[in-house]
């Protein structure tokens, strides 16, 4: 396919790969016995998850009293963790959907893992509001269905109910998108397997044959799902921000919240993708597919969204002062100089200062620095939610009800437990499915393989434009 490829584009697949080598490299991690690193990681994750489950059962058994919430600070660690995980879940759909619409080829290296991460992160996130209800066995009351409780329906005017719809739609659509992408790759695994494994993967691959008409429809479906997911992903964090923005709490009641939350979500999501992918590419030896180019592209997104978040913080401060409204002014004074000043400055440093390192190209391409900063960003984004939620509630309108908060061991246990859930699910995923989208990488080989473009291109096969460009180099 002689698609026009800019000579400035860097190769996204290195190592002079053939189609067969791509299959070999990407499928073999699911076929080999797990490595020691995987086993240790898995045992650790399951142990942490078990403790998390214990803490959840404790919460349900004893009640929400086992948490350190009080009448003033009635949302804190739980909702902080919920918003944090939901934010992390935003990168997957952004990479797979928005970058598909923008025809960004580098998405193929990371989309599969990022989408998986989205699904696991949304599962972790959904857990918090569910157990925060206190009586989780009545959780179905949030769904609107004809019932015998009178005619009694949920309040459709409430942003909390919008959240239920937004997050469950997001989880469902992400799952459909992810699985549809996986079907042809499961067929590849199936065709290399024997015996029972072949049967299992045949079921997972839904009997995929690779027929031309199927591929045509598959591309059509992917494109429309991407088109649907793009406004969806923006709506999810917008609606999460409505949980706060539609209230009358100073510091929450601001119209800037939706874009600010969405930018923050993409920011933290990309940071988590980087943290995970830097480890995964090393352990599964995927350096030829998740290249420095991919890391640099993601760092550019981090720089952009981090800067948007920084501008939003400063705008908030400015508007609080400019509004002339004392409660709003106090809310921000309290955030920066009140009892939780350390979380405010932690947030400012991690989210506003740290991404600015990525203006420098060689630092964007530095893996150690990227890994370190990706963790810093995730800590910063956790602080952001804690600042917005807990520290704002701690100092409300009435000084007599001012309060302080620190989490109980149960709350810490549940949060740590969600890491167990997240990593257990991710580690199972890397064993079961190819972490990089095999068919999609093959489809971009001739426009992004290092034997076709870039400085070391050996043949311009299929690219009329290529020979002209290499002459001018």
């Amino acid at each position, binding site marked *: *396919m002689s698609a026009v490829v800019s000579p400035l584009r860097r190769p996204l697949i290195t190592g002079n790969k053939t189609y067969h080598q791509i299959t070999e490299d990407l499928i073999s991690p699911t076929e080999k016995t797990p490595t020691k690193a995987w086993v240790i990681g898995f045992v650790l994750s399951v142990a942490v998850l078990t403790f998390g489950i214990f803490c959840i059962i404790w919460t349900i058994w004893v009640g929400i009293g086992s948490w350190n919430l009080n009448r003033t600070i009635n949302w804190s660690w739980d909702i902080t963790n919920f918003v944090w995980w939901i934010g992390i879940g935003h990168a997957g759909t952004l990479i797979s959907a928005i970058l598909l619409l923008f025809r960004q080829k580098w998405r193929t290296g990371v989309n599969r893992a990022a989408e998986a991460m989205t699904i696991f992160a949304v599962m972790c996130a959904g857990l918090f509001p569910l157990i925060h209800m206190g009586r989780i066995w009545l959780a179905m009351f949030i769904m609107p269905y004809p019932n015998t409780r009178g005619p009694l329906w949920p309040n459709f005017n409430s942003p909390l109910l*919008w959240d239920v719809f937004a997050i469950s739609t997001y989880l469902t*659509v992400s799952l459909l998108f992810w699985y549809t992408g996986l079907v042809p790759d499961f067929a*590849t695994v199936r065709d290399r397997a024997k015996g029972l494994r072949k049967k299992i993967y045949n079921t997972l691959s839904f009997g995929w044959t690779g027929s031309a008409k199927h591929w045509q429809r598959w591309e059509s479906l992917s494109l429309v*799902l991407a088109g649907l997911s793009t*406004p969806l992903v923006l709506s999810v964090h917008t609606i999460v921000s409505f949980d706060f923005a539609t209230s009358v709490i100073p510091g929450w009641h601001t119209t800037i919240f939706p874009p600010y939350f969405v930018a923050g979500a993409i920011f933290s999501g990309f940071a988590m993708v980087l943290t995970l992918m830097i480890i995964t590419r090393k352990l599964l030896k995927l350096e030829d597919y998740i290249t420095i180019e991919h890391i640099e592209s993601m760092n550019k997104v981090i720089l952009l969204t981090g800067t948007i978040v920084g501008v939003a913080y400063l705008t908030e401060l400015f508007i609080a002062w400019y509004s002339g409204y004392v409660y709003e002014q106090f809310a921000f004074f309290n955030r920066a100089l009140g009892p939780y000043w350390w979380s405010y400055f932690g947030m400012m440093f991690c989210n506003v200062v740290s991404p600015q390192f990525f203006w420098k190209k060689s630092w964007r391409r530095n893996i150690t620095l990227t890994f370190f900063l990706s963790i810093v960003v995730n800590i910063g984004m956790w602080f952001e939610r804690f600042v917005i939620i807990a520290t704002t509630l701690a100092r409300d309108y009435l000084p007599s009800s001012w309060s302080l908060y620190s989490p109980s061991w149960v709350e810490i246990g549940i949060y740590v437990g969600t890491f167990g859930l997240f990593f257990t699910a991710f580690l199972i995923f890397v064993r079961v499915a190819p972490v990089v989208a095999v068919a999609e990488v093959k489809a971009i080989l001739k426009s992004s393989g290092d034997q076709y473009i870039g400085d070391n291109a050996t043949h311009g096969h299929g690219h009329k434009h290529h020979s002209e460009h290499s002459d001018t180099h």
Partner: protein
Amino acid sequence: MANNKQTDVIFGLYNDEEDLLRAVKAAKNDHLDIYDVYSPFPVHGLDPLLELEESRLHQAGFIYGAIGTLTAFLGMSWIFTKDWPNIFGGKPYWSVPAFIPITFEMTVLFSAIGMTVTFYIINGLGPGVVNTYLDDRITDDKFCIAFDKSAVSAERAESFFKSTGASEVNSKTI
């Protein structure tokens, strides 16, 4: 494609999608009726050569989405004006702006589920479906053209595959 009757096919495997495209063009010039083409990834430029119509899946998606919009909006309107009228924060019963987020989410949900389910049904794919696969390497690095033996004679097909540079020629009943 999904049909229940058995078909005897003769198929050739190519090593590259550009060989495949050239061969499909040659088959078109020779007026050979191609049964199907299989590839490890979507090959661009193939659909017009095979005269495949554009998929109408997105139109189905639009209809599913519209059903979602109506379900959500009319549902909430009925509930809050007829079945369970309630005043929340002094707002009117029928407070349209507050219905927009859920209406949007339901539009996306219906469209996505409807399209995906339709995709698998019209392709004849689904959990438990076992198809006869022509060659295990088609999902790896081979590109395949198949002829129905009742439409194209085996000799004709073989000479075609030879002249277009197929690396292997085989027969199978699918």
